[in-house]
Protein backbone atom coordinates (compact mmCIF):
# COMPACT_ATOMS: atom_id res chain seq x y z
CA UNK A 1 0.00 0.00 0.00
CA UNK A 2 2.85 2.31 0.95
CA UNK A 3 4.60 1.48 -2.31
CA UNK A 4 1.46 2.28 -4.38
CA UNK A 5 1.08 5.55 -2.50
CA UNK A 6 4.70 6.45 -3.13
CA UNK A 7 4.37 5.62 -6.85
CA UNK A 8 1.18 7.71 -7.14
CA UNK A 9 2.85 10.59 -5.30
CA UNK A 10 5.82 10.37 -7.66
CA UNK A 11 3.55 10.37 -10.74
CA UNK A 12 1.60 13.33 -9.34
CA UNK A 13 4.87 15.15 -8.68
CA UNK A 14 6.05 14.56 -12.25
CA UNK A 15 2.70 15.74 -13.66
CA UNK A 16 2.63 18.87 -11.48
CA UNK A 17 6.21 19.71 -12.47
CA UNK A 18 5.48 19.19 -16.16
CA UNK A 19 2.25 21.20 -16.10
CA UNK A 20 3.58 23.97 -13.87
CA UNK A 21 6.39 24.52 -16.36
CA UNK A 22 3.79 24.51 -19.14
CA UNK A 23 1.61 26.93 -17.16
CA UNK A 24 4.57 29.18 -16.41
CA UNK A 25 5.48 29.24 -20.13
CA UNK A 26 1.86 30.06 -21.02
CA UNK A 27 1.78 32.76 -18.35
CA UNK A 28 5.00 34.29 -19.69
CA UNK A 29 3.75 34.17 -23.27
CA UNK A 30 0.42 35.82 -22.45
CA UNK A 31 1.71 38.35 -19.91
CA UNK A 32 2.75 41.12 -22.37
CA UNK A 33 -0.69 40.98 -24.00
CA UNK A 34 -2.43 40.94 -20.63
CA UNK A 35 -0.42 43.94 -19.39
CA UNK A 36 -1.05 45.81 -22.67
CA UNK A 37 -4.79 45.14 -22.27
CA UNK A 38 -4.70 46.41 -18.67
CA UNK A 39 -2.93 49.62 -19.78
CA UNK A 40 -5.43 50.09 -22.59
CA UNK A 41 -8.28 49.62 -20.14
CA UNK A 42 -6.72 52.15 -17.74
CA UNK A 43 -6.10 54.68 -20.51
CA UNK A 44 -9.71 54.44 -21.70
CA UNK A 45 -10.78 55.81 -18.32
CA UNK A 46 -8.84 59.02 -18.93
CA UNK A 47 -9.89 62.16 -20.70
CA UNK A 48 -9.31 61.95 -24.44
CA UNK A 49 -6.59 64.59 -24.45
CA UNK A 50 -4.62 62.70 -21.77
CA UNK A 51 -4.80 59.24 -23.31
CA UNK A 52 -1.81 59.36 -25.69
CA UNK A 53 0.47 60.83 -23.07
CA UNK A 54 -0.33 58.33 -20.35
CA UNK A 55 -0.45 55.36 -22.74
CA UNK A 56 3.17 56.00 -23.71
CA UNK A 57 4.28 57.03 -20.23
CA UNK A 58 2.76 53.93 -18.64
CA UNK A 59 4.14 51.61 -21.32
CA UNK A 60 7.58 52.98 -20.51
CA UNK A 61 6.93 52.50 -16.75
CA UNK A 62 6.00 48.86 -17.38
CA UNK A 63 9.06 48.51 -19.61
CA UNK A 64 11.27 49.71 -16.74
CA UNK A 65 9.65 47.32 -14.25
CA UNK A 66 11.46 43.99 -13.81
CA UNK A 67 9.62 40.66 -13.71
CA UNK A 68 6.34 39.55 -15.24
CA UNK A 69 4.42 39.65 -11.95
CA UNK A 70 5.86 43.08 -11.17
CA UNK A 71 4.66 44.38 -14.54
CA UNK A 72 1.18 43.05 -13.87
CA UNK A 73 1.06 44.61 -10.39
CA UNK A 74 2.13 48.00 -11.81
CA UNK A 75 -0.47 47.61 -14.58
CA UNK A 76 -3.25 46.92 -12.09
CA UNK A 77 -2.13 49.93 -10.06
CA UNK A 78 -2.47 52.05 -13.20
CA UNK A 79 -6.17 51.19 -13.34
CA UNK A 80 -6.52 52.86 -9.96
CA UNK A 81 -4.31 55.76 -11.10
CA UNK A 82 -6.53 56.30 -14.15
CA UNK A 83 -9.65 56.32 -12.02
CA UNK A 84 -8.12 58.88 -9.65
CA UNK A 85 -6.76 60.98 -12.54
CA UNK A 86 -10.15 61.14 -14.21
CA UNK A 87 -11.52 62.62 -10.99
CA UNK A 88 -8.83 65.19 -10.19
CA UNK A 89 -8.01 66.71 -13.54
CA UNK A 90 -10.34 69.49 -14.64
CA UNK A 91 -12.14 68.98 -17.89
CA UNK A 92 -10.86 71.50 -20.46
CA UNK A 93 -14.15 71.23 -22.30
CA UNK A 94 -16.15 72.27 -19.26
CA UNK A 95 -15.92 75.98 -20.20
CA UNK A 96 -18.02 74.97 -23.19
CA UNK A 97 -21.02 74.54 -20.91
CA UNK A 98 -22.30 77.92 -22.01
CA UNK A 99 -21.80 76.96 -25.67
CA UNK A 100 -23.70 73.72 -25.06
CA UNK A 101 -26.66 75.51 -23.51
CA UNK A 102 -26.70 78.14 -26.27
CA UNK A 103 -26.45 75.46 -28.99
CA UNK A 104 -29.36 73.55 -27.42
CA UNK A 105 -31.43 76.72 -27.24
CA UNK A 106 -30.62 77.68 -30.84
CA UNK A 107 -31.58 74.17 -31.93
CA UNK A 108 -35.00 74.63 -30.32
CA UNK A 109 -35.38 78.11 -31.81
CA UNK A 110 -34.47 76.78 -35.24
CA UNK A 111 -37.08 74.00 -34.96
CA UNK A 112 -39.74 76.54 -33.95
CA UNK A 113 -38.82 78.77 -36.92
CA UNK A 114 -39.01 75.87 -39.39
CA UNK A 115 -42.48 74.97 -38.12
CA UNK A 116 -43.62 78.52 -38.88
CA UNK A 117 -42.50 78.36 -42.54
CA UNK A 118 -45.58 77.25 -44.51
CA UNK A 119 -44.12 75.76 -47.72
CA UNK A 120 -41.92 72.69 -48.05
CA UNK A 121 -39.55 74.52 -50.42
CA UNK A 122 -39.25 77.38 -47.93
CA UNK A 123 -38.40 74.91 -45.19
CA UNK A 124 -35.81 73.29 -47.49
CA UNK A 125 -34.14 76.64 -48.31
CA UNK A 126 -34.09 77.58 -44.60
CA UNK A 127 -32.50 74.23 -43.72
CA UNK A 128 -29.93 74.59 -46.50
CA UNK A 129 -28.98 78.10 -45.44
CA UNK A 130 -28.65 77.18 -41.81
CA UNK A 131 -26.90 73.84 -42.44
CA UNK A 132 -23.39 74.93 -41.27
CA UNK A 133 -24.85 76.34 -38.05
CA UNK A 134 -26.92 73.17 -37.61
CA UNK A 135 -23.84 70.95 -38.01
CA UNK A 136 -21.87 73.02 -35.53
CA UNK A 137 -24.73 72.89 -33.00
CA UNK A 138 -25.19 69.15 -33.50
CA UNK A 139 -21.49 68.57 -32.90
CA UNK A 140 -21.54 70.57 -29.65
CA UNK A 141 -24.70 68.84 -28.44
CA UNK A 142 -23.40 65.36 -29.31
CA UNK A 143 -20.23 66.12 -27.43
CA UNK A 144 -22.31 67.25 -24.46
CA UNK A 145 -24.26 63.97 -24.50
CA UNK A 146 -21.01 62.00 -24.60
CA UNK A 147 -19.61 64.01 -21.70
CA UNK A 148 -22.75 63.54 -19.65
CA UNK A 149 -22.70 59.79 -20.37
CA UNK A 150 -19.12 59.65 -19.15
CA UNK A 151 -20.28 61.71 -16.12
CA UNK A 152 -17.78 64.43 -17.07
CA UNK A 153 -20.34 67.13 -17.53
CA UNK A 154 -21.45 68.57 -14.24
CA UNK A 155 -25.21 68.91 -14.60
CA UNK A 156 -25.43 71.30 -11.64
CA UNK A 157 -23.04 73.67 -13.41
CA UNK A 158 -24.89 73.28 -16.69
CA UNK A 159 -28.17 74.10 -14.96
CA UNK A 160 -26.56 77.11 -13.33
CA UNK A 161 -25.70 78.40 -16.82
CA UNK A 162 -29.34 77.84 -17.85
CA UNK A 163 -30.57 79.74 -14.78
CA UNK A 164 -28.16 82.59 -15.50
CA UNK A 165 -29.34 82.82 -19.12
CA UNK A 166 -32.95 82.70 -17.90
CA UNK A 167 -32.36 85.75 -15.71
CA UNK A 168 -30.54 87.54 -18.56
CA UNK A 169 -33.20 86.71 -21.14
CA UNK A 170 -36.59 86.83 -19.40
CA UNK A 171 -38.38 86.91 -22.78
CA UNK A 172 -36.87 83.65 -24.05
CA UNK A 173 -39.53 80.96 -23.62
CA UNK A 174 -37.16 78.03 -24.27
CA UNK A 175 -34.60 79.01 -21.64
CA UNK A 176 -37.37 80.01 -19.21
CA UNK A 177 -38.99 76.57 -19.63
CA UNK A 178 -35.69 74.71 -19.10
CA UNK A 179 -34.92 76.80 -16.01
CA UNK A 180 -38.40 76.20 -14.56
CA UNK A 181 -38.26 72.46 -15.37
CA UNK A 182 -34.89 72.13 -13.69
CA UNK A 183 -35.87 74.04 -10.57
CA UNK A 184 -39.13 72.08 -10.26
CA UNK A 185 -37.34 68.73 -10.67
CA UNK A 186 -34.66 69.73 -8.17
CA UNK A 187 -37.23 70.91 -5.60
CA UNK A 188 -39.32 67.76 -6.08
CA UNK A 189 -36.22 65.63 -5.44
CA UNK A 190 -35.36 67.64 -2.34
CA UNK A 191 -38.88 67.37 -0.94
CA UNK A 192 -38.85 63.62 -1.57
CA UNK A 193 -35.57 63.15 0.29
CA UNK A 194 -36.80 65.33 3.16
CA UNK A 195 -40.22 63.62 3.41
CA UNK A 196 -39.07 61.18 6.12
CA UNK A 197 -38.25 64.03 8.50
CA UNK A 198 -41.87 65.34 8.56
CA UNK A 199 -40.81 68.99 8.73
CA UNK A 200 -43.19 71.91 9.17
CA UNK A 201 -43.96 73.43 5.72
CA UNK A 202 -42.35 76.75 6.68
CA UNK A 203 -39.21 75.01 8.01
CA UNK A 204 -38.98 72.88 4.86
CA UNK A 205 -39.42 75.95 2.66
CA UNK A 206 -36.60 77.74 4.50
CA UNK A 207 -34.37 74.66 4.22
CA UNK A 208 -35.07 74.39 0.47
CA UNK A 209 -34.23 78.07 0.00
CA UNK A 210 -30.94 77.56 1.88
CA UNK A 211 -30.05 74.42 -0.08
CA UNK A 212 -30.88 76.15 -3.37
CA UNK A 213 -28.69 79.15 -2.51
CA UNK A 214 -25.85 76.80 -1.47
CA UNK A 215 -26.18 74.72 -4.65
CA UNK A 216 -26.13 77.79 -6.85
CA UNK A 217 -23.19 79.35 -5.02
CA UNK A 218 -21.17 76.09 -5.33
CA UNK A 219 -21.99 75.82 -9.03
CA UNK A 220 -21.05 79.46 -9.63
CA UNK A 221 -17.66 79.09 -7.93
CA UNK A 222 -17.03 75.80 -9.77
CA UNK A 223 -17.78 77.52 -13.09
CA UNK A 224 -15.51 80.42 -12.16
CA UNK A 225 -12.71 77.97 -11.27
CA UNK A 226 -13.10 76.16 -14.59
CA UNK A 227 -13.00 79.43 -16.50
CA UNK A 228 -9.62 80.39 -14.92
Amino acid at each position, binding site marked *: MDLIGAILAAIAGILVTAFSKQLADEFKAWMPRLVAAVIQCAVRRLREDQRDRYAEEWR*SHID*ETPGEIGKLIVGLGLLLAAWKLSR*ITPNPRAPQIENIVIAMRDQERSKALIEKIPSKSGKFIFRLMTLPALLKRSHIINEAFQLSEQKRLNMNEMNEVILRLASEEPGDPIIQKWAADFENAWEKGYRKSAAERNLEPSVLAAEIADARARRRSEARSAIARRMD
Partner: protein
Amino acid sequence: MGSEPRMSAQTIKVLGALMSSPGELSGAEIGRATKLASGTLYPILARLEQVGWFESRWESERPQVLGRPRRRLYRITAVGIRNARATYKDLQGALGRLAWT
Protein backbone atom coordinates in the same frame (compact mmCIF):
# COMPACT_ATOMS: atom_id res chain seq x y z
CA MET B 1 -2.45 77.07 -12.08
CA GLY B 2 -4.48 75.53 -9.34
CA SER B 3 -4.31 75.90 -5.59
CA GLU B 4 -2.01 74.13 -3.13
CA PRO B 5 -1.84 70.34 -3.36
CA ARG B 6 -2.83 68.23 -0.36
CA MET B 7 0.31 67.59 1.69
CA SER B 8 0.01 63.88 2.41
CA ALA B 9 2.95 61.72 3.47
CA GLN B 10 3.07 60.31 -0.07
CA THR B 11 3.17 63.80 -1.64
CA ILE B 12 6.05 64.73 0.67
CA LYS B 13 7.90 61.55 -0.37
CA VAL B 14 7.49 62.45 -4.05
CA LEU B 15 8.66 66.02 -3.43
CA GLY B 16 11.63 64.68 -1.49
CA ALA B 17 12.58 62.33 -4.33
CA LEU B 18 12.62 65.14 -6.89
CA MET B 19 14.32 67.61 -4.52
CA SER B 20 17.16 65.20 -3.80
CA SER B 21 17.63 64.23 -7.43
CA PRO B 22 20.22 66.19 -9.43
CA GLY B 23 18.33 65.71 -12.69
CA GLU B 24 15.01 64.63 -14.06
CA LEU B 25 13.32 61.37 -13.06
CA SER B 26 10.80 59.16 -14.81
CA GLY B 27 7.63 57.94 -13.09
CA ALA B 28 9.15 54.48 -12.62
CA GLU B 29 12.28 55.95 -11.03
CA ILE B 30 10.21 58.12 -8.67
CA GLY B 31 8.15 55.03 -7.85
CA ARG B 32 11.29 53.08 -6.98
CA ALA B 33 12.74 55.97 -4.92
CA THR B 34 9.54 56.53 -2.94
CA LYS B 35 8.30 52.91 -2.93
CA LEU B 36 4.88 54.22 -3.93
CA ALA B 37 2.51 52.09 -6.00
CA SER B 38 1.65 53.34 -9.47
CA GLY B 39 -1.97 53.90 -8.42
CA THR B 40 -0.84 56.43 -5.80
CA LEU B 41 2.11 57.91 -7.65
CA TYR B 42 0.58 59.17 -10.90
CA PRO B 43 -2.31 61.13 -9.34
CA ILE B 44 0.25 62.87 -7.08
CA LEU B 45 2.50 63.68 -10.06
CA ALA B 46 -0.52 65.01 -11.98
CA ARG B 47 -1.59 67.20 -9.05
CA LEU B 48 1.90 68.61 -8.57
CA GLU B 49 2.20 69.28 -12.29
CA GLN B 50 -1.24 70.88 -12.33
CA VAL B 51 -0.28 73.40 -9.63
CA GLY B 52 3.04 74.15 -11.32
CA TRP B 53 5.33 72.54 -8.75
CA PHE B 54 6.52 69.96 -11.28
CA GLU B 55 7.22 70.08 -14.99
CA SER B 56 7.51 67.13 -17.31
CA ARG B 57 8.80 66.49 -20.80
CA TRP B 58 9.35 63.52 -23.09
CA GLU B 59 12.80 62.05 -23.60
CA SER B 60 14.26 63.75 -26.65
CA GLU B 61 15.15 60.54 -28.54
CA ARG B 62 12.54 58.87 -30.69
CA PRO B 63 11.13 55.50 -29.51
CA GLN B 64 12.39 53.88 -32.75
CA VAL B 65 15.94 54.95 -31.87
CA LEU B 66 15.55 53.99 -28.21
CA GLY B 67 13.95 50.64 -28.99
CA ARG B 68 11.45 51.17 -26.16
CA PRO B 69 8.65 53.63 -25.29
CA ARG B 70 9.83 57.14 -24.44
CA ARG B 71 10.01 58.04 -20.78
CA ARG B 72 8.23 61.06 -19.40
CA LEU B 73 10.75 62.94 -17.28
CA TYR B 74 9.73 65.02 -14.28
CA ARG B 75 11.61 67.86 -12.63
CA ILE B 76 10.74 70.19 -9.79
CA THR B 77 10.23 73.86 -10.69
CA ALA B 78 11.46 76.91 -8.78
CA VAL B 79 7.93 77.40 -7.42
CA GLY B 80 7.91 73.74 -6.36
CA ILE B 81 11.28 74.06 -4.59
CA ARG B 82 10.12 77.19 -2.76
CA ASN B 83 6.84 75.63 -1.67
CA ALA B 84 8.42 72.29 -0.75
CA ARG B 85 11.00 74.08 1.43
CA ALA B 86 8.22 76.05 3.12
CA THR B 87 6.32 72.79 3.72
CA TYR B 88 9.37 71.07 5.24
CA LYS B 89 9.97 74.11 7.42
CA ASP B 90 6.35 74.01 8.63
CA LEU B 91 6.65 70.29 9.29
CA GLN B 92 9.89 70.73 11.20
CA GLY B 93 8.24 73.43 13.29
CA ALA B 94 5.24 71.22 13.97
CA LEU B 95 7.46 68.24 14.88
CA GLY B 96 9.56 70.46 17.13
CA ARG B 97 6.46 71.64 18.97
CA LEU B 98 5.32 68.02 19.26
CA ALA B 99 8.65 67.07 20.85
CA TRP B 100 8.31 69.78 23.49
CA THR B 101 4.75 68.95 24.51
